[in-house]
């Protein structure tokens, strides 16, 4: 039954070409010596050198990386707790509200989330900037972490946990010594997804930012509005390289089977 049909091969090949061609073109043209997009002026690292002296862009990148690392870590903690609560606590009061709050941000238009968080910060009288973006990102991306960790917890052999507890292991120790090592690939995948989502976000950061806190996407967006620039191609290429590197490291360090399961889960639920 499982034979290659021409239709299937063509469908997948065309789909992947559509997904990758624009990115490949962008990467190639970041090495273009010419300032004009259509004119190929030979290979050059000119735009990367120009980037190195672009203070504002480097500051923005640094801000983005710090926000992403902080909010991804906070979100992984919160999201893992939420996933444990949803899969191990059975029914509890307010469960429906809780799961509603976990799943809604996954599809909620960003303009709504961004606006509502900004109005909260204004109502609280908080100075907007680095920390408000970090809190906003944590809120959004913890839901993605929850979904990934949750799908791992659901498909997991609970008799191991039960055996540990029957032998008198306290719940916290059971979690740390039995559960966590087993769900670790999902937690790691959740952190990495959270990191790249935070690094990527423009809309929520634009709403919740304040003076002095310009993230990389905000900076790129303001440049892109003025037109295509080869420097932007170079920044984008670096960002793509970073993400590709993270993904490759992730595939090498985590067990293949486990990672595959996380990906399939991500596919099913995100």
């Amino acid at each position, binding site marked *: 039954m499982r034979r290659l049909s021409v239709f299937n091969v063509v469908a997948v090949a065309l789909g992947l070409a559509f997904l990758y061609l624009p990115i490949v073109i962008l990467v190639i043209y970041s090495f273009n010596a010419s300032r004009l997009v259509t004119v190929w002026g030979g290979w050059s690292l000119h735009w990367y050198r120009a980037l190195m002296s672009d203070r504002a862009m480097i500051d923005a990148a640094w801000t983005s990386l710090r926000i992403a690392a902080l909010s991804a870590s906070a979100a992984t903690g919160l999201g893992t707790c939420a996933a444990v609560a949803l899969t*191990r606590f059975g029914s509890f009061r307010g469960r429906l509200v809780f799961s509603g709050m976990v799943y809604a941000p996954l599809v909620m238009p960003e303009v709504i989330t961004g606006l509502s968080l900004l*109005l909260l910060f204004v109502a609280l009288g908080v100075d907007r900037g680095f920390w408000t973006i970090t809190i906003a990102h944590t809120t959004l991306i913890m839901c993605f972490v929850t979904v990934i960790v949750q799908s791992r917890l659901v498909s997991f052999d609970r008799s191991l946990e039960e055996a540990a507890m029957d032998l008198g292991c306290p719940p916290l120790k059971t979690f740390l010594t039995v559960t966590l090592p087993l769900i670790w690939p999902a937690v790691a995948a959740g952190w990495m997804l959270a990191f790249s989502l935070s690094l990527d976000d423009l809309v929520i950061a634009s709403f919740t930012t304040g003076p002095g806190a310009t993230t990389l996407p905000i900076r790129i967006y303001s440049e*892109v509005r003025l037109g*295509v620039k080869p420097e932007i191609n170079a920044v984008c290429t670096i960002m793509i390289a970073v993400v590709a590197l993270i993904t490759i490291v992730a595939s090498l360090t985590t067990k293949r089977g486990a990672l595959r399961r996380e990906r399939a889960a991500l596919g099913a639920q995100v």
Partner: protein
Amino acid sequence: MSAPGKRSWGARAVLLVPYLWLAAFFLVPFLIVLKISLSQTAIAQPPYTPLFDWSDGWAGLKAFFAALSADNYAMLGSDALYLVAYLKSIEVAAVSTALLLIIGYPMAYGMARAPRGLQPLLVMLVILPFWTSFLIRVYAWINILQRDGLLNDLLLRLHLVDAPVAWLASDTAIYIGVVYSYLPFMVLPLYATLEKMDEQLLEAAADLGCPRWKAFWQVTLPLSLPGVAAGALLCFIPITGEFVIPDLLGGSETQMIGQTLWTEFFSNKDWPVASAIAVALLGLLLVPILVYERLQQRTIEGGR
């Protein structure tokens, strides 16, 4: 971990910390948006009235409620600009979702029928662009679609057109950008359901003399409907509120509602109207969001 009611403090914290976090930063902000959508614009900081003053006590609360009004919503209903933007958003979301299904289904089907060993690689190839920046992926298309961009260059060289075509600032560009950005969101849920499907059903159909197209129509397609629903909702809901894609690729004559909200907020500094737009958009999407949550609960929590 233990029976309800006799949970330890540690176990309670596991639930309470994320619960309170989401309540504080996801639920409460919506109530504030709702409240501000009923306020009036003011030249002040923050730019709306009334402000609730705790020190006035009961009288302050009464005055506060008396000052709320539905004027902003009346304006949304009466000004054609907003209505057009809402309709435009729904149109773009509906057409894009249909396009995504047409493009995504064959791709997901092909992936699910690929050799087992190849499938993880294919899934990773579809997910990888999802991990790279949304903004970058939209920007990549500006390179291609702009007036002296690569598409026009190619078409001119092939003598398919005589003069450069204005691809950017058009609905076509929006559709290309949306379909491109959301394709992984459509393909992955579809693949997940198609991959789980029992192939013996198709063999049985073939053994009983059912032609392949008919077997697809009567067996595969109905069985993949949960994936179709998940993919469609996962695309339709966020596309309706999309801002970046229409802003960078679309034209200026018709705006989508996400852009209208953005403009009211950032350019016109009219926070109450921006809030009213957000509430109305949420009202529009409430049913799809609830359906999506129901599906999500069933796929994850209903066991697999």
